[in-house]
């Protein structure tokens, strides 16, 4: 059907976008920080000349900026992201080891927030203006108003320092081995995932609840009631299905923002992910790493947007016709 044409078009569209974003990042760094060679030297003044020269050659650091960018782009197409100017490790290695932890943290948070959002919103919408609804809306608006890291800190203080039942940071203990120490991994996952989920839950519940309230007043819901349809079917099959369509798009966008916002949560929990690494890279102006992370996160955001748009087509029959 035409859906594949649409998907291909959207995927192709990622290319100019990513080029735009990485180019802007690239040129900003050089416009503000100047000569890349100087950056390298400032980073590590004791770098031996030979290593420095090798670095310059490998990363083409002595060419004009535009050429350097095109060179980087060319390498990226061949999946070569260069080397870290700080450690000399290939960037793809670095990214590979950090990316997974970010991904599974975000997915865990996403799963929890989506799973909880539905029953909570339905409850709040059905018992509108009741005490329960009031509490839920209050907690939701608090969730979107509190800085994620602050909530994280408070939970760490409570559960890790005071109660001592959960770890204060990191993805796993030093001697934990995957997959046997699953419990250990999960214990470390709880707080950061909960914090991200709480924030997103606030957003989803606010949106879904208001959509549900609106939908419950519509004609077809009234018609179902007039037919004696059990409430279970009216709410979960019909109202929810109609209410959820914009929420799906919203979840996709929120996921993108969440991934991009990883630096904050990961710093708070010393979580070894892309965000944490990004903060380090920025501090040292380790530009190959910076560029690679910007690239990756942009691609991840755009792909999740497209995935959500496609999902939307499946969910809403009215969109399918074209």
């Amino acid at each position, binding site marked *: 059907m035409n859906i594949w044409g649409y998907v291909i078009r959207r995927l192709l569209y990622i290319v100019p*976008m990513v080029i735009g974003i990485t180019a802007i990042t690239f040129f900003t760094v050089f416009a503000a920080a100047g000569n890349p060679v100087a950056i390298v030297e400032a980073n590590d003044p004791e770098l031996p000349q030979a290593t420095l020269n090798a670095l310059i050659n490998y990363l083409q650091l002595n060419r004009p900026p535009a050429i350097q960018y095109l060179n980087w782009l060319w390498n990226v197409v061949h999946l070569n992201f260069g080397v870290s100017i700080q450690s000399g490790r290939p960037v793809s290695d670095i990214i590979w080891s950090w990316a997974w932890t970010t991904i599974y943290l975000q997915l865990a948070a996403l799963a929890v927030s989506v799973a909880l959002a539905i029953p909570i919103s339905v409850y709040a919408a059905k018992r509108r203006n009741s005490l329960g609804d009031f509490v839920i809306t209050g907690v939701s608006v608090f969730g979107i108003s509190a800085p994620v890291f602050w909530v994280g800190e408070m939970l760490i203080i409570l559960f890790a320092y005071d109660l001592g039942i959960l770890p204060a940071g990191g993805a796993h203990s030093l001697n934990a081995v995957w997959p046997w120490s699953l419990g250990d991994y999960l214990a470390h996952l709880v707080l950061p995932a909960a914090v991200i989920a709480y924030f997103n839950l606030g957003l989803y519940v606010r949106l879904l609840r208001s959509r549900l309230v609106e939908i419950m007043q519509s004609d077809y819901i009234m018609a179902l009631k007039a037919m004696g349809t059990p409430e279970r079917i009216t709410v979960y099959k019909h109202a929810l299905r109609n209410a959820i369509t914009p929420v799906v798009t919203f979840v996709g966008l929120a996921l993108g923002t969440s991934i991009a916002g990883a*630096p904050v949560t990961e710093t708070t929990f010393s979580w070894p992910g892309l965000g944490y690494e990004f903060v380090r890279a920025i501090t040292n102006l380790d530009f190959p790493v910076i560029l690679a992370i910007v690239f990756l996160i942009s691609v991840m955001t755009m792909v999740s947007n497209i995935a959500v748009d496609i999902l939307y087509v499946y969910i809403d029959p009215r969109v399918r016709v074209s």
Partner: protein
Amino acid sequence: MVTETVRRKSASQFAVALRRFRKSKAGLVGLGMLVFMCVLAAIGPRIAPYNVNSNNLLLQGDTDIPPTWLKPPLFHDWAFPFGTTVGGLDVFSGVLVSLHVDIIIGVGAALFAMALAILVGLVSGFYGRVVDTVLMRVTELFIVFPALLFLLLLSRLLAGRLSGVETLLFYIIIIGVFSWATNARLIRGEVLRVKSLEFIESEKALGASTTRIVFRHILPNVLAQVVVLTSFTVATSILTEVALFFLGFGSGNILSLGEIMYLNFPYMDVEWWAELFPGLSVVILVLAFNLLGDGLSDALNPKLRE
């Protein structure tokens, strides 16, 4: 004739909206909190009991130093309601003194972002076709851009070179630059909706000029949404700004709530109050703008009867 009706309509619409706002619990609470925080921020620096030096929280040579490392009133002294830190910072004074920075940056960034958003949204929605396509592509770029990452980068590169007021302006601009895009899209949507309303057609038929249509008719109708969006944008701007500072990418020469939290983060296990109270202040501030936004939304976009 037509302008008269539109103006009269706007005047009474305003009165109606005001009445609805007064009924909105969220709106009133939000407004109250906001007023309180603004007053506190304004008089803060004057009533703070201790000096707070943003460059170095370890006060040296200062005669009036609070005792160090005190817990808040539950355990100790009401003279230090929020406790103090090892470094000699009275958290209460710290909060009072830095509150206005967060407000200024948040509001400034939001206003800047909304100005851009209105401009792009109006032009794009109204003129359509090529202009619309081009502007929407640009907007899309800014939406997809990993904002926080780039903000961190910009801060790292440029913030150190600035001082005082310049720093505030810097943060206002860079945060604003990454907040306008989503709003622009929303405003454009609203402009399109209003554009298709019948009375615009009749205005065109009467021969009204383009500027007249845009400013006299489209803008007032879009204004409701703009006001609501602004309030929410301030909320997100403050959160962004606090996150930036918390990660250590403040410029180091202005003190804000986020900066206090950054400086005390390593000592969180022993001085949790130095994280709690500044954070709580941020929550109250952001909550105020979110509730206000809700109240404005109820007042200006009435949904079906509750």
